[in-house]
């Protein structure tokens, strides 16, 4: 009978080498992401713990607002399973142009460059991966993270003032804050909520989790604050809640309130976004973009005005 070997003792004397070159390639991935993002001045993620609060609508309108202020803007839609940014900007059906140096993103209204999973999908087709779905919990999360890594590493953004990243919905121990953690020199996260107590509760968790991950949460946008009925004209609050109080508790600035605006929403649904900067709801997005700029310049503001 063979003598039992002491593996621990054997390993103590061995020097590990990465001869399959796995670690080397993973390090290279990180290097590529850093290199690709180097030309972008401010990287911001837009997140919320709760789905359906209007995160994509907010991201798209903030991108347009920055572009209207003369900035060069990119918009990365990393909601892999529900990408809607291209449709909202009238880019559905277009695709990334593959070149040896990387993927060239289509350019939308006001010069906003867009990358999205939607560009890889046929009309109304869901994202489906090759591989055994019965064991998908083993590999699916890893796969999605690496697809997102490719979006960060392979899109040729060029020089940008702002890159806005529309994260998928999800709260605490979920993907969004992890995705945000991939992005080098992330300026911060903008959190979108509705004034409903249910949304507030979940959003609060996502803020805490993002902070645990070391992500700077810059402020909150309250979406669907109120609604003007197109039939009777009456303005009502849609939810009973108080985002201001939540912001105070979380020590976050409330960046602005956006009403539920059916006219504006319809234009995005049809891929013909309303771009008129005199339109009241668009002006609110402009104000929020201005506040974000102030926050990014926070130290300068304090030095100037204190």
């Amino acid at each position: 009978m063979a003598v039992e070997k002491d593996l621990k003792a054997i390993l103590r004397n061995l020097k590990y080498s990465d001869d399959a070159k796995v670690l080397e390639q993973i390090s290279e991935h990180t290097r590529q992401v850093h290199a690709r993002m180097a030309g972008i001045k401010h990287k911001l993620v837009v997140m919320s713990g709760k789905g359906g609060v209007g995160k994509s609508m907010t991201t798209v309108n903030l991108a347009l607002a920055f572009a209207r202020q003369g900035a060069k803007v990119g918009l990365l839609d990393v909601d892999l399973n529900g990408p809607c940014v291209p449709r909202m900007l009238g880019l559905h059906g277009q695709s990334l142009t593959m070149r040896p140096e990387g993927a060239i993103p289509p350019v939308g209204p006001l010069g906003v460059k867009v990358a999205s999973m939607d560009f890889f999908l046929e009309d109304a087709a869901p994202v489906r991966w090759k591989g055994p779905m019965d064991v998908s919990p083993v590999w699916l999360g890893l796969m999605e993270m690496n697809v997102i890594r490719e979006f960060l590493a392979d899109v040729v953004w060029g020089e940008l003032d702002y890159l806005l990243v529309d994260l998928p919905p999800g709260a605490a121990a979920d993907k969004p804050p992890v995705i945000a953690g991939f992005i080098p020199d992330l300026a911060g996260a903008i959190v979108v909520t509705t004034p409903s107590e249910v949304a507030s509760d979940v959003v609060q968790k996502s803020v805490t989790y993002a902070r645990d991950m070391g992500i700077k949460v810059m402020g909150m946008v309250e979406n669907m604050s109120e609604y003007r009925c197109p039939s009777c004209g009456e303005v009502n609050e849609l939810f009973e809640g108080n985002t201001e109080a939540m912001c105070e508790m979380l020590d976050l600035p409330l960046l602005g309130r956006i009403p539920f605006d059916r006219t504006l929403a319809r234009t995005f649904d049809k891929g013909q976004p309303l771009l008129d900067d005199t339109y009241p709801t668009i002006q609110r997005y402009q104000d929020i973009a201005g506040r974000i700029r102030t926050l990014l310049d926070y130290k300068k503001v304090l030095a100037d005005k204190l």
Partner: protein
Amino acid sequence: MKFVCLNCETYMNFEKVEKPGEDSLGVFFGCPSCNAKFSMVTNAGETQMVNSLGVKLGGRTVEAEPFEMTRGTLKAEATAGSGQMAAYLNEKIQGGQPAVAATTAAPAAKPGEKSGGGCPFSAMVAEMGLTSGGKPGDTETVTSDFTWSADAKEKLDRLPSFVKPMVQSSVEAFARKQGYKTITLQVMDDSKGESSNGITWTSDAEKRLENIPDFIRPMARKEVERVAKERGLATITAQVMDETKDKFMKFM
């Protein structure tokens, strides 16, 4: 993953990778001492797991193409039938009509103008117990040792349920400390001005803080209080404000 040759007590070297089947990988290792060969064969799940890493075992011989993994792992057959689905959805949702111009999408009714019960949100608003101004129709009673003025109580009642106890407790702690018996809106506002670390602000300093845009004022307040704390001061004076300003001038 590494393999150890127990006879030679050394790591086996990675040699090559082959694809014995559609959902399988054969990874070959060899012992550098005794030249023993060993092959690990992966099942479908393990193969997919390796693919999901976005790496080539053994390293790359050619540069990766953009979105190589995304394009290589999307299931092409998933798109089958999606054209018909899109046509169906277009027909059902848009009635096959081309999208209308943005500015004519929804004619807004004049404020106050009533129409024949077409408001899609009226029922929802009524269900939530809100009045037309969005104010709650009925609120919980504040349980407290203090007398809350009607407007202060209304402000408290409008807070989300999870925030309300904390705010109430904080305001009442402040009122107790100041010897107030009645909580008014002013007391609520003043309670916000008192920092949790007991630092007080002179009126001059408060006035200077108002130069900061209101949405970042709380952050600025914290920065100033941090400077005071570093210097062991309990009162924010104009001098502390100057020192904070100098601190931020260094970042310019």
